[in-house]
């Protein structure tokens, strides 16, 4: 407990002390192996249709959906154990950016590409599909119409081949 607090403080100080360096993680997050930041890491071309962004209730709606998806995954008896060992503070930030970027919300994506993010995680197609079910639930709770959900899922579906390795 104490060590992790200490590590957090050191990380925080490091982050504050070196603002000029490109940060691949933010204060409060665990460090990650260096990588090149680029919107291209998101793995798809964003949707340009403002009707889609509106259906997701803009950035606020997207943030609710990304967070809710992670909550549902953590509560899932099969997916929970896969997610829990990782840094959920970071994932909440990067998944939100990812969704926001892809849905044309004007965010940029600062996370890793899909292959690197899911390397050695042992994700199977069944897990991928379960996460889609949770994402659908989160979108439904947000009131995103089914057709609009599918516009988004059509972008994510091809990522199957990078997430399931």
């Amino acid at each position, binding site marked *: 407990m104490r060590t992790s607090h200490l590590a957090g403080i050191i990380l925080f100080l490091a982050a504050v002390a070196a603002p000029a360096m490109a940060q691949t993680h933010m204060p409060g997050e665990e460090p990650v192996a260096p990588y090149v930041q680029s919107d291209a890491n998101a793995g798809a071309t964003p949707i340009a249709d403002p009707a889609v962004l509106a259906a997701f209730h803009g950035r606020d709606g997207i943030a609710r959906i990304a967070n809710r998806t992670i909550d549902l995954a953590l509560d899932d008896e099969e997916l929970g154990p896969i997610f829990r060992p990782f840094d959920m503070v970071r994932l909440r930030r990067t998944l939100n950016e990812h969704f926001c970027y892809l849905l044309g919300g004007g965010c940029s994506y600062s996370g890793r590409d899909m292959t690197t993010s899911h390397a050695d995680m*042992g994700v199977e197609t069944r897990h991928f599909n379960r996460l889609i079910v949770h994402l659908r639930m989160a979108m439904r709770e947000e009131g995103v119409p089914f*057709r609009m959900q599918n516009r988004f899922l059509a972008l994510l579906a*091809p990522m199957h081949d990078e997430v399931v390795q």
Partner: protein
Amino acid sequence: MRVLIVGAPVFAFFFAGPGPAAALDLPQIGGKLPLTRGVTQIEGASGAGLAPWAVIAGNETEDGVGASAFYTATPLSDYDFSAYGAAIGFFDRFEISYAHQEFDTGSTGALLGIGDGFTFEQDIFGAKLRVFGDALYGQDTWLPQVAIGVQYKQAEHEGLIQALGGEDDEGVDYYVAATKILLRESLLVNATVRFTEANQFGLLGFGGDREDSHTPQLELSAAYMLTDRVVLGAEYRTRPDNLGFAAEDDGYDAFAAYAVTDNITLVGGYVDLGSIATLNDQNGAYLSIQFGL
């Protein structure tokens, strides 16, 4: 104590799935998204009502072996058509299936001079191999999911089939099916080309006095997703016309499929098979239930 020590590794062997992520979990079954296994078409293959699709039976993904079973009833204007069967899907790649079809002529049998309640029947053994493409995950390409299949059919009542002008009481259909989910449009489309010499699916035998070899036939399906558990669909299936004594028409249907749970799908609709054994306008309700694991 001994028992426990010996038992533990065995227990672990059965319950630990592949990969590090699965180690903590209960036995894993299923995994496909609702309705993505299709339902079961009238000859026992995974697909819609009339056409086989390029999808594989059961709920398992490339990591498992799944299965499905179905019962379909189609009370037509002058006949009762029903079918039941089961299929096994291996690793979302290969499917084997069995179906039994019954075509009960009821009181129409007497009218046709073959006897009241006379029932045409056949057994159908199918195999299907998914060759390439992914209908669902391949959203970034136009390439559909493609499968090739065979259906070996063995009809009963050889004597009557021959008296009606049929060449044979057994035959093999060969098909290629291409399925694509256009997720952006909430639509699934399928086209299947079948090489067949079957008369009325094979219930009236294979080949006839008018045509006694395989001919290519086209089977088209489209399904619109209303939710992830409800689709509305329609199909068109061309059919050979081999027998001189009675014309055979193309068939079509319109249906709604509802995935009640991940394991049970109900299908209801309307089917029109045209003229069957000289009696025109054979249409009626189409009801089907499918179980999938």
